[in-house]
C-alpha cells in the first residue's frame, strides 16, 4: 500500500507536492541522482523507540583488532598503549567506497555496522551482550567473542576505575540513574576542535611534536629535579601522538590506494574513473597536508571526525562547517570556477549524509533520551567573525539548501542569529523550518557571546568563535577555549529537587535516602521553609553530580587517555599533556544540563498558591495525594493542573518563582568550580529525557503522576498548559536574563504550517524573531508539522517514513520514536491560527 501511494507521489509535479507540503517527495524530485542514491543507501543507525532497526549489527572486528595490540603493549603509559592499538585498527579495519560517493571514511567495517566503544563502562558492554538483534551472525560464535571481550574489560573500563575512587555513597547514588545521566569519562564524550590549527596538516603537527621531543630530550640530560621529573611522562605522550597521526595519514592512504585500484581495474565509466582518481589524490593530500580546495577540506574534516570516533564515543559533533569550508567553496565556485554550484551542492549534501550514517552503540538510557538518532550532532551556522562582522557565507546557504535536499535528521543546524544577518540568509533558515526539518534552531549570538564571556571569562574575540558543544552550549574553538571532554555529564534530573524537598530527601522510586534530610513538609510554617528545603536539595543534587564529573575529568588522562585528540589539540601538543588534562590551559566550559526543570516552578507555584496563600488545601492533603500518586484525588489533581498558575503564560505569580529558582541556581553555579576553576551554570534542556524519566519521577504538585511524560523541556511550558499563545510564552521566557541566569535555555515552539505559508509566513516569522531577539532569549526551535500529518504517520508509518520532527535539542524521523514520545509531541500546543 505504501508503495502504490509512493508511485502516485512520483507522478505529481513538484509544484503540487509543494502545495501539499510533501517535502520529502519534493526533495526526492529535485536532488541530483548521486545524492538520491547516497541518501537512500544510508542504514538507519538511530534506535526506533528502544531498539535498533533490523539489519544493524555491532562491529566485532574493531574491538578484536584493538585488543590484539592493546594486550601486546600492556604496562606502557595508557596513551601510548592506546595509540598502538588504534594504529593497528586503522591499518587493518576493512574500508569501503560506496558507489557514487566522493567523501571517504566510516567508523566500522561495513555500512550496516555500528561501533561499540567498550572502554567506557563495562555495564554497557554487558548491555550489548544482552541486546536483541544486533549480534552478528553466527550468533553463537559472536556471543563467545563478546563474552571473552567483556570478561577482559570488566573492571578495566574508565567508569569501573572511577567508581573505585569515588566516594561509595556518591557512586551508588550517581549510578542509581535516578538523579541524572552521566558518564564522567571522555570514553563517552564530545570535544570542540580548532580547525585553524588542524588544517595545518598532520605532517606539520608531527614536525612540531618532533621539535618538542628533541627539546625535552635535551633537558632530560640534566639532574632529575622537580622541574625535570614531569618531563619523563611527556615523552610517551608525544610518542603516542606521533603514532596516531601517522596512522591517520596511512588510513587516508588506504582509501587512496583503493580508489586507484578501482579506477585502474574495476571502473568502466570514464566519468566515475575521473572521480575515483580525484578521490585518490584527495586522500593522498589530506590529512597529511593542508587542504587546497573544497573536496580536500571536506575530506580532511571528515577524516578528523572519523578518527576521533575511532578513539572514543563522541556523542555530539561540535562544528561550524560553513565557517571552516566557506573560503574553499568561495575559491572553487566563485573565483576559480573549478566547481559548479550543483557540483558543490553534491559534496555538501554528501557531507551531511556521511555524517548521518555514523552509528555508535548507545546504551538504552541514551537511546530513550535521544530517540531516533546516534548523537546530538548540532552543527553551528552563521554567527560572527572574531572581529564581530557577519560570518555568513555561500557555504551557509549551501548547507541549508543541501539539508532540504537530503533531509537527514542528524546532523541538525543551530543558527547564530545576529542583527547583521542578511535577509537572504534568514530566508534560507526559514525555508528549512518551513520544510519541516525542525532546524536550524535559532540562537541569539550577541546574548550567547556575552554569556560565554560572563561564565568562563573567554576573551570576547574568542567567544565569537563559538560552536554548539552539544545541543545548546556555546564553546569557543580556540587554543584555550576548546573543550576536550563532556563536562555536561553532570546532567540533573531536576524534578527530583522538588520531589525530594517534599519527601525529606527520600526517593520512593528507587527506595533510597538520596538527598539531605530537609524536614517533614508538614512542619513547614510558610512557603519560605519549603523554598529553603528546595534550595538545599538543589544544591545537594548539583554538588554530587559536579564533584563526580570533576573527579572523572581530573582522572581521565589516567583512566582513559586520548592520543588522537591530544594530537589535534594545540595546547596538548605544546605541553605534552593529554588533551583532557585540565592543567594545560583549559579555561573551562562546564555546565549542568537541567532535565525536567520547569516542573519545579509549576510545583512550587501550586503549593504557594493553594497551601500557603489561599489555604485551600493543607500540606497533609497534598502529601497524601502525592503519596497515593493522585489515585483517589482526581478532582484535586485537576484543580492543581487547571487552576494553579503555570509557567509560560506571562503570569508574574509563577514567572517570578521561576526567576527566583534560576537566581538561586546561578548563585550556586558560582560556588561550584570545575577543575579549571571555572563555574558550573545550569542549562535547562531535555532531549527526550522527559520520556526516559517518566517512570523515575514520582507524583508532583503540578498534577503530574508517576509515569506521565514530563514537560518537553528547557524552559518550554508544559504541553497544553500555555494557554495564552506564543507571545505570552516568549514574554515569560524574557523575564530572566539569558546572560547571567544560566548557560542557555531551550524553548520549543510548534507553529502551524498554514500560518507560515507564502511570503506572509516569512514576514510573520521575521517579526516574531525580531521580538524574540528584543526580549533577549537565547534559543528557540520550531516544529512545523501539523497534527493531522503526525496522526496519519502514527496510523500508517510506512507512508510517512521521512517526516522529521524536532524532539528537543535535536531532530528525529517521527516514525523512529516511541509512541509515548510521539503522543507527547502531538500534545505540545500548536500555536493557533490567529
Amino acid at each position, binding site marked *: 500500500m505504501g508503495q502504490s501511494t509512493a508511485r502516485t507521489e512520483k507522478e505529481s509535479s513538484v509544484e503540487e507536492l509543494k502545495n501539499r507540503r510533501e517535502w520529502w517527495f519534493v526533495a526526492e524530485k529535485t536532488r541530483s541522482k548521486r545524492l538520491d542514491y547516497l541518501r537512500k543507501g544510508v542504514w538507519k543507525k538511530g534506535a526506533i523507540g528502544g531498539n535498533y532497526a533490523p539489519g544493524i549489527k555491532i562491529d566485532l572486528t574493531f574491538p578484536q583488532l584493538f585488543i590484539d595490540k592493546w594486550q601486546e603493549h600492556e604496562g606502557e603509559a595508557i596513551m601510548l598503549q592506546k595509540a598502538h592499538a588504534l594504529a593497528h585498527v586503522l591499518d587493518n579495519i576493512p574500508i569501503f567506497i560506496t558507489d557514487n560517493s566522493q567523501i571517504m571514511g566510516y567508523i566500522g567495517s561495513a555500512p550496516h555496522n555500528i561501533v561499540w566503544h567498550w572502554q567506557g563502562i563495562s555495564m554497557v558492554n554487558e548491555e550489548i551482550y544482552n541486546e536483541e538483534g544486533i549480534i552478528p551472525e553466527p550468533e553463537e560464535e559472536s556471543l563467545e567473542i563478546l563474552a571473552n571481550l567483556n570478561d577482559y574489560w570488566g573492571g*578495566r573500563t574508565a567508569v569501573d576505575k572511577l567508581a573505585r575512587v569515588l566516594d561509595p555513597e556518591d557512586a551508588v547514588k550517581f549510578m542509581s540513574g535516578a538523579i541524572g545521566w552521566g558518564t564522567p569519562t571522555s570514553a563517552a564524550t564530545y570535544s570542540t576542535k580548532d580547525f585553524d590549527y588542524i588544517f595545518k596538516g598532520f605532517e606539520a603537527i608531527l614536525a612540531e611534536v618532533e621539535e618538542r621531543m628533541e627539546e625535552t630530550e635535551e633537558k632530560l640530560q640534566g639532574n632529575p629535579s622537580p622541574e625535570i621529573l614531569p618531563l619523563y611522562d611527556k615523552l610517551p605522550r608525544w610518542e603516542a601522538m606521533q603514532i596516531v597521526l601517522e596512522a591517520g595519514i596511512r588510513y587516508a592512504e588506504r582509501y587512496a590506494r583503493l580508489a586507484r585500484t578501482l579506477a585502474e581495474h574495476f571502473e568502466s565509466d570514464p566519468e566515475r574513473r575521473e572521480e575515483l582518481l580525484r578521490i585518490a589524490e584527495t586522500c593522498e593530500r589530506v590529512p597529511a597536508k593542508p587542504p587546497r580546495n573544497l573536496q580536500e577540506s571536506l575530506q580532511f574534516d571528515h577524516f578528523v571526525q572519523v578518527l576521533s570516533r575511532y578513539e572514543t564515543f563522541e556523542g555530539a559533533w561540535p562544528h561550524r562547517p560553513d565557517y571552516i569550508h566557506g573560503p574553499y567553496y568561495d575559491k572553487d565556485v566563485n573565483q576559480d570556477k573549478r566547481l559548479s554550484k550543483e557540483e558543490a551542492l553534491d559534496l555538501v549534501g554528501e557531507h551531511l549524509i556521511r555524517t548521518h550514517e555514523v552509528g555508535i552503540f548507545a546504551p538504552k538510557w541514551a537511546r530513550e533520551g535521544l530517540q531516533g538518532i546516534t548523537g546530538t550532532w548540532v552543527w553551528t551556522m552563521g554567527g560572527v567573525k572574531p572581529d564581530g562582522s557577519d560570518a555568513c557565507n555561500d557555504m551557509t546557504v549551501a548547507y541549508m539548501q543541501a539539508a532540504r535536499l537530503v533531509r537527514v535528521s542528524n546532523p541538525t543546524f543551530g543558527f547564530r542569529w545576529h542583527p547583521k544577518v542578511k535577509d537572504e540568509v534568514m530566508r534560507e533558515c526559514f525555508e528549512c523550518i518551513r520544510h519541516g526539518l525542525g532546524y536550524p534552531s535559532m540562537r541569539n549570538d550577541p546574548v550567547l557571546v556575552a554569556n560565554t564571556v560572563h561564565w568562563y571569562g573567554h576573551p570576547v574575540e574568542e567567544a565569537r568563535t563559538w560552536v554548539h558543544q552539544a545541543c545548546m552550549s556555546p564553546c569557543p574553538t580556540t587554543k584555550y577555549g576548546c573543550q576536550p571532554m563532556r563536562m555536561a555529564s553532570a546532567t540533573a534530573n531536576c524534578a527530583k529537587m522538588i520531589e525530594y524537598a517534599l519527601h525529606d530527601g527520600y526517593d520512593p522510586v528507587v527506595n533510597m535516602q538520596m538527598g539531605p534530610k530537609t524536614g517533614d513538609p508538614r512542619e513547614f510554617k510558610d512557603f519560605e521553609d519549603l523554598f529553603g528545603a528546595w534550595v538545599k536539595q538543589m544544591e545537594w543534587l548539583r554538588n554530587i553530580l559536579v564533584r563526580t564529573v570533576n573527579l572523572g575529568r581530573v582522572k581521565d588522562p589516567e583512566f582513559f587517555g586520548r592520543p588522537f585528540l591530544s594530537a589535534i589539540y594545540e595546547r596538548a601538543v605544546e605541553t605534552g599533556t593529554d588533551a583532557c588534562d585540565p592543567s594545560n590551559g583549559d579555561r573551562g566550559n562546564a555546565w549542568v544540563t537541567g532535565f525536567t526543570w520547569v516542573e519545579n516552578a509549576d510545583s512550587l507555584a501550586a503549593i504557594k498558591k493553594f497551601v500557603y496563600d489561599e489555604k485551600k488545601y493543607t500540606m497533609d492533603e497534598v502529601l497524601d495525594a502525592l503519596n497515593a500518586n493522585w489515585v483517589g484525588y482526581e478532582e484535586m489533581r485537576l484543580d492543581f493542573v487547571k487552576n494553579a498558575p503555570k509557567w509560560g503564560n506571562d503570569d508574574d505569580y509563577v514567572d517570578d518563582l521561576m526567576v527566583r529558582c534560576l537566581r538561586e541556581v546561578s548563585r550556586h553555579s558560582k560556588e561550584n568550580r570545575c577543575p579549571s576553576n571555572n563555574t558550573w551554570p545550569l542549562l535547562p534542556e531535555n532531549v527526550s529525557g522527559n520520556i526516559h524519566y517518566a517512570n523515575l519521577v514520582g507524583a508532583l504538585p503540578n498534577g503530574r503522576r508517576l509515569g506521565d511524560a514530563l514537560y518537553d523541556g528547557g524552559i518550554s511550558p508544559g504541553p497544553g498548559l500555555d494557554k495564552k499563545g506564543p507571545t505570552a510564552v516568549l514574554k515569560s521566557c524574557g523575564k530572566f536574563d539569558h546572560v547571567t541566569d544560566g548557560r542557555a535555555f531551550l524553548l520549543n515552539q510548534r507553529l502551524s504550517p498554514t500560518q507560515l505559508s507564502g511570503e506572509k509566513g516569512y514576514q510573520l516569522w521575521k517579526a516574531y524573531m525580531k521580538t524574540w531577539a528584543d526580549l533577549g532569549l537565547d534559543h528557540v526551535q520550531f516544529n512545523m508539522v501539523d497534527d493531522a500529518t503526525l496522526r496519519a504517520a502514527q496510523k500508517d508509518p510506512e507512508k510517512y517514513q521521512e517526516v522529521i520532527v524536532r524532539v528537543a535539542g535535536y531532530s528525529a524521523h517521527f516514525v523512529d520514536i516511541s509512541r509515548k514520545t510521539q503522543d507527547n509531541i502531538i500534545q505540545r500546543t500548536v500555536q493557533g491560527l490567529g
Partner: protein
Amino acid sequence: MSRRDKWKSARDAMMAPLGKTKGVKTRESVPEVCCGKCEMWFENAYSSEGRGTCRVLKMGSEIHSDKPTYVLEGDAGLISYFNMDASHCSYFSKMELIDTDGTECSDPLFRRALRQMKKFNE
C-alpha cells in the same frame, strides 16, 4: 560502621559482577524464578545490563540461598540482577510482561536484558 563502609557494601554489590570471568554460560543462565520477572524489582536507569533495585528489601538482605535474610530498614535498596535466583524469596511476585517487542520506552516493567528474557515471552 562508618558512612563510607555502609555505602561500600552497596557499591560493591553494584560493581560486583564486573571483573569476574563469566563466559557465555553464566551470562545465559536465567533461572525460572528470578528478580527480572518480579514486580518488586526495578531496573536501574543508569545502565540496562540487568542491574536493578528491590522496591521492598534493603541492603544486607540475602535472597539467593535456602534461608534468605530480609532487611527492611536502611538507606539503600537491595541491588540485584535480572537473573538472580529468586525462588527462595518470599517477596517474589511475578509481573506481567507488557512490552514484548522492545520498541516502547519507559515501560516500568520493561525487561531490558532483552535477548535472554525473550524466551519467557511465550
